[in-house]
């Protein structure tokens, strides 16, 4: 099947850091791998609830999820 129909079949729509995004259905750990993030350096909030790092591989994304992925930057 071509890419578009593949996306239609297994992709879901989420909001990631304020931007709409279509991603493969899977766990949050899968999403981190998909976008190239090291989960050890970030924190994840899903629908306003913290997702403990130890459970990132178990928590499955659902259509419409609001995700925030943050890290530490310079600040005063």
């Amino acid at each position: 099947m071509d890419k578009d129909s593949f996306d239609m079949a297994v992709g879901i729509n989420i909001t990631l850091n304020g931007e709409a995004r279509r991603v493969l259905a899977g766990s949050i750990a899968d999403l981190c791998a998909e976008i190239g993030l090291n989960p050890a350096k970030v924190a994840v909030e899903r629908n306003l609830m913290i997702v403990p790092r130890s459970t990132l591989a178990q928590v499955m994304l659902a259509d419409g999820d609001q995700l925030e992925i943050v890290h530490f930057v310079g600040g005063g």
Partner: protein
Amino acid sequence: MTQESGSDTWTVAGRRFSSRLIVGTGKYKDFEQNAAALAASGAEIITVAVRRVNVTDPGAPMLTDFIDPKQYTYLPNTAGCFDRDSAIRTLRLAREAGGWDLVKLEILGEAKTLYPDMRETLQATEILAKEGFLPMVYCADDPIAAKQLEDAGAVAIMPLGAPIGSGLGIQNRVTIRLIVEGAKVPVLVDAGVGTASDAAVAMELGCDGVLMNTAIAEAKDPVMMARAMRLSVEAGRGAYLAGRMGRRMYADPSSPLAGLI
């Protein structure tokens, strides 16, 4: 209690530190300059902000690549938060990202002055303390508000000396001193320091430490200024411990009057 003996430490929430200078990590030209200034400052605690990861450039260098969280105590802040709920949300994320419960609470009232919103700050302090956080709290230089924060669970009181990033120096020595005298937890001047003498003033007033960012980051030579700040904090602390002379209205000669020719 001399600094030479290395015994002049201070303790916040049961954690002991030698350096009384806490530095921010914002506004630097690059991570290398930030790391060099930090080394020159001698600071053991650094403040950091929590922000969204750039998902379009996930391989970009991160602060933690340059400043080792195992070597320095990261103090996550809530800079940019203007209400209680966003500050608490930010610190919950920070705790998950780094595993640290010692945090800097800062809830701003308006963008123009970046003065703290003390009503929101007090409420957030209570909630955070109940959730097991150890909040060091940026606040107005108000001795009553400082007591209220302490009662609410603040592990350190951090009054502004002047508006954040202003470099105006400590505007009201009396209120800072009143806070120091009334507090059972450490008091650190947070914000307003512009140059080394400002930091020394804070320490001479009996503060346990000073927190600064812009005064170092926006100096012409940040690394040299970081060193100057380290020395001024030590000098001010030493003068406070030594106990300054009394003030007199008129002169008092240093050479003996007897035996004049």
